[in-house]
């Protein structure tokens, strides 16, 4: 290993999208024959950094060097030619074509101008055998499991002269055996001197396979560490960071939650991404959910609110068994969900503030009983005032609003139907500090008025501040539920980060 000269070196890279800076003067390097991990929460700049290295986008500033040569990639194709191959999370292959074609398409062997299918199958089989993969090269890719598709994607990547292999969340849909298989391949490639960038939100896996870790937060470099020298808890702390807060501490409910009747209680709720979750939420209680990205926090929220239908488990609402087969049903019972993806799952971007606020209420009343425009405006104005939404012109299309104001519009929409339980999925993500504190305070006020709230956030301080109790999620399971008073950030962080014991 040539310690002196990195194989990949990105210096002072900056990427802007309009007004937001996705990557701010970040340095990044990788050595030949190492497995390197890139860590950070949502919006830390991980995917932007990957895109900058793999030619998907060109940085606004900064230089990229590969094996000592300064390069600029105009396209992913350029990057591939320079030896940088990428395997994306949502596998970018062609399920309708054969495995062999997926490995070799674009470089397929030809005879007299026509594709020599037999030769191609043989060549593909060799490459696959290198990876220990004995599948029929002529079979269509789509019939294979995701794990195998992932390995086929890697086969394609290494069938060229690959120097750098970027694996973006390669294990998110693999089971334990499949992960082991993938790791075997990664180690083999490492032996060959390939530099591997392994991006994953599974800490266990990062610690198992990676030599070195680079941590990003809010588009900035936090630091680069040797895995062996970085404690897990320190890593989590570096990823999540800390910040000062202007949060108004609210009076906690005096009575212990156990003494209260639970408004909603869920037992053994499972769906894709969450398994066997037990949740109790009392009236007027805020339940914080803490967990890393991919720990199942969104899956839990969606399973509790009818957005995804749970595969098993029961949900009781005020002691009555309830089946949420659609968000509509849940809404009618006062259980509402605010998605973390405001743009794609929350707002109707082209519509005005009034229409967005009135949408859920209108949907509940049905298409034929229109809320009179004057009533809708009155409603919207009262919420605009109550939540201090800006601009106050309620005819503005919501896509022109800032993130914080968009979030408030979503809240107003849900609050307008007088819900009993509000499930907020990362309501403060990507919004400025002022708006963040406003929303935190608002959640407190709503709880004081008897509304139950589930509050999901990637920021542990926030979860602790807002939540009366905190449920800690790890790898799709609730590992502990504790009162916020009994936790501090450090102990919560330890719970969030602690590895599971290896399963039998």
């Amino acid at each position, binding site marked *: 290993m040539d310690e002196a000269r990195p194989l990949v070196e990105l210096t002072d890279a900056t990427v802007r999208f309009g007004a937001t800076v996705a990557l701010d003067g970040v340095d990044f390097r990788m050595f030949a024959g190492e497995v390197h991990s890139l860590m950070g929460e949502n919006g830390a700049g991980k995917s932007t950094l990957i895109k900058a290295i793999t030619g998907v986008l060109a940085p606004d500033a900064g230089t990229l060097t590969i094996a000592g040569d300064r390069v600029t990639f105009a396209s992913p194709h350029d990057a591939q030619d320079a030896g940088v191959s990428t395997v994306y999370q949502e596998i970018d292959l062609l399920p309708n074509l054969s495995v062999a074609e997926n490995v070799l398409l674009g470089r397929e062997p030809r005879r007299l101008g026509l594709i020599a299918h037999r030769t191609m199958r043989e060549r593909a089989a060799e490459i696959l055998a290198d990876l220990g993969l004995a599948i029929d090269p002529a079979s269509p890719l789509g019939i294979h499991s995701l794990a195998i598709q992932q390995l086929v994607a890697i086969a394609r990547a290494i069938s060229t002269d690959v120097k750098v292999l970027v694996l973006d969340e390669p294990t998110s849909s693999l089971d334990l055996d499949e992960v082991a298989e993938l790791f075997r391949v990664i180690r083999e490639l490492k032996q060959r001197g390939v530099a591997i960038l392994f991006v994953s939100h599974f800490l266990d896996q990062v610690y198992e396979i990676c030599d070195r870790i680079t941590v990003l937060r809010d588009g900035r470099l936090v630091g680069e560490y040797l895995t062996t020298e970085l404690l897990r808890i320190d890593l989590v702390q570096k990823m999540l960071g800390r910040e000062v807060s202007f949060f108004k501490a609210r009076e906690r409910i005096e009575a212990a939650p156990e003494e209260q009747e639970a408004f909603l209680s869920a037992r053994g709720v499972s769906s894709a991404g969450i398994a066997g979750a037990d949740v109790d939420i009392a009236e007027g209680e805020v339940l914080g959910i803490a967990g890393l990205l991919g720990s199942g926090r969104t899956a839990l929220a969606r399973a509790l609110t009818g*957005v995804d239908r749970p595969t098993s488990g029961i949900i009781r609402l005020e002691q009555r068994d309830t089946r949420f087969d*659609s*968000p509509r049903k849940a*809404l009618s019972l006062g259980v509402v969900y605010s998605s973390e993806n405001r743009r794609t799952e929350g*707002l109707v971007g082209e*519509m005005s503030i009034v*229409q967005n606020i009135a*949408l859920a209420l209108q949907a509940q009343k049905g298409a034929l009983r229109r*809320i009179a425009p004057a009533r809708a405006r009155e409603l919207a104005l009262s919420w605009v005032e109550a939540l201090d939404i800006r601009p106050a012109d309620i005819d503005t299309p919501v*896509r022109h609003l800032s993130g914080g104001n968009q979030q408030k519009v979503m809240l107003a929409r849900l609050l307008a139907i007088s819900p009993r339980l509000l499930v907020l999925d990362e309501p403060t993500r990507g919004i400025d500090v002022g708006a963040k504190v406003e929303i935190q305070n608002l959640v407190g006020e709503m709880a004081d008025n008897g509304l139950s709230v589930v509050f999901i956030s990637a920021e542990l301080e926030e979860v602790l501040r807002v939540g009366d109790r905190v449920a800690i999620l790890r790898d799709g399971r609730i590992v502990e539920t504790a009162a916020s008073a009994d936790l501090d950030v450090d102990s919560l962080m330890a719970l969030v980060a602690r590895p599971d014991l290896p399963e039998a």
Partner: protein
Amino acid sequence: MTLLKHRLFWPAAALVTLLAVNMIANPSFARISLRDGQLYGALIDILRQSAPLMLVALGMTIVIATRGIDLSVGAIMAVSGAVALTIIDGAGDANSWGTVMLAIGIAVLVALVLGAWNGLLVSVLGIQPIIATLVLMLAGRGAALLITDGFITTVNSSPLSYIASGYLLILPFAFFVWLAAVVVVGLVERRTALGMLTEAVGINPEASRLAGVRSRGIIWTAYILSGVLAGIAGVIYAANIKAADANAAGYLIELYAILAVVLGGTSLMGGKFSIAGTVIGVLTVQALESTILFLGVPPAQSPVFFAVVVVIVVLVQSPRVHRWGRLLGSRFGSSGGDGKMPPVATPEKQKEVVR
């Protein structure tokens, strides 16, 4: 300036220009004469002849707003015309208003069922709208031919002639039919929340679902409406030619309707729709058709002109042409200081790019 920015400005300007060119080229185009208390003239003809297209385009507007498309409208027209005329033909008295109204009622009911069928395929089975409505587009005409036994059923019926060319007060009856449809649909969409929820489903289906909107029902309603309106259009078309011609009825009308909707400023990507825009769009198509006739071009050749219009319209809406336009605009803006480009427009457009 605000007038320029109104979403209906350009569609309306296109229509007015088209009419103006006609009037200048041929002053008789604008002539409207009053005979026996009834108005006649080229402009009145446009109002009368646009009835079938107007009805079909109205339904198409709502379907397109849900991100869908209904290719089967022409076939539904053929079926409803065939049903109505076969009933009238079979009945004893073709001149009885009762018979004709009953026949029309049944024809429209059949059209409603066909629309519901489309809606079922799209909203419940989740089949792509283009493909789902293709089935009926193909089979519908066959069914219409079966109803008429493969012949062109001709009927002489005074109530039907009235629908085709009669006058109510001083204007053609057919004009009042489409006007009534426009008013009713406009009222239903805008006086209930149907229009708003339809737009929400068209703009962001997932967000609408999470907000508790019954998108399945809304999409279904759109196809039923489209079917019913196509059914009425089919009856009017049959009345116009006094015959049920399963092959010619509504031939290519789906395409003209889509063109009219797009000309009226409703995007094919779904979402915000404008009924007034569609009215303008249909009148534009109809005026263009009249213009072509006026120029002495055989009607069969008119598709060439429409092809050109379609190409221009899609090019104007194409992102690439927008980019060229912006490039051109910024070049002029920097070198010549051309005051025509409002400075406000720039940040807005940038946002679009980011999005």
